[in-house]
């Protein structure tokens, strides 16, 4: 595994988006993972629609049938991947733009630009997460967002952080040497793309520590999924 890796340097990550006042983070996480997978499959970066999932995806978690994707009221990335496999794929952001509100489904199958071939859940192991990131592209992950409301920049590594997952984001890379003054040493970190606009965090991104002595900080390793795309023209 490379010591540092960032899919932004390889053109697999689209612009930072803004979900607005809508609990649709899960759809941004899922679309970001598919944007990356589609880039790996085709060499082309397509900015994909979240609104299609907000409006049309009502897929339920097979292990908990009362927990279903529900637009601005929340959802789950793996359920979204199931929906995308069933529906055929995602339209582009341009064809099905984001409104930040629940609306009627206006999905047009003829406008699909990216399709899911398969998806998997990655084990709670930082090396496996890094390997899947490098091999398959950006990963959809869950995180505990308690510290994100006040985050401005740097490598977040709270002494205490719950592992209850409440926010869906996109893991796009990792670094080996974020400086941690309190611990007087270089600290490795994950690079996470958020969906709260560019004027949040580090131009829309969040860094959180990783490594054997801080593993699964804020639950970051515990819900990781990877997706692969099929070529569509």
């Amino acid at each position: 595994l490379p010591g540092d890796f960032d899919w932004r340097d390889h053109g697999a990550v689209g612009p930072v988006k803004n979900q607005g006042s809508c609990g649709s983070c899960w759809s941004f996480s899922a679309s970001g993972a598919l944007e990356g997978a589609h880039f790996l499959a085709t060499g082309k970066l397509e900015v994909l629609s979240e609104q299609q999932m907000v409006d049309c995806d009502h897929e339920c978690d097979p292990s908990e049938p009362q927990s279903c994707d529900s637009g601005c009221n929340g959802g789950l990335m793996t359920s979204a991947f199931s929906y995308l496999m069933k529906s055929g794929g995602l339209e582009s952001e341009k064809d099905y733009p984001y409104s930040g509100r629940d609306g009627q489904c206006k999905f047009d199958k003829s406008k699909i630009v990216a399709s899911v071939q398969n998806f998997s859940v990655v084990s709670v192991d930082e090396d496996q997460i890094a390997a899947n990131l490098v091999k398959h592209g950006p990963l959809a992950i869950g995180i505990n967002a308690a510290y994100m409301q006040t985050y401005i920049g740097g490598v977040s590594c709270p002494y205490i952080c719950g592992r209850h997952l409440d926010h869906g984001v996109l893991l796009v890379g990792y670094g080996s040497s974020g400086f941690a003054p309190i611990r007087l040493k270089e600290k490795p970190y994950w690079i996470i793309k958020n969906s709260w606009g560019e004027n949040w965090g580090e131009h829309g991104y969040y860094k959180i520590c990783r490594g054997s002595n801080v593993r699964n900080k804020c639950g970051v390793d515990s819900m990781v999924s990877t997706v692969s795309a099929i070529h569509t023209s």
Partner: protein
Amino acid sequence: AEDPLIRQVVPGGGDDNDLELNAEHHFASFVRRFGKSYRDADEHAYRLSVFKANLRRARRHQLLDPCAEHGVTKFSDLTPAEFRRTYLGLRKSRRALLRELGESAHEAPVLPTDG
């Protein structure tokens, strides 16, 4: 001059008063910067009280998370509950997650990580 290995992470000292004194100034700057508007004076006063609580919270986060920078963000006029309700949306119970991880249907194969 502060010992970098030992930091106070509980309230104390005179910082609370400084924070209170500067909060209105910070709030005015926050409102301008993020283009916030409130429907009336009551709402404005309530949001100022929430903002003050979030300044204290940001300072707690800074002490508990010293490698990062915490402070005023565009969410500083929201209570934690409002923030969760409006901006977070991952529907997942821990129980369901563990069950899902136990299922093999969608488990990613183990990849080599050495060399």
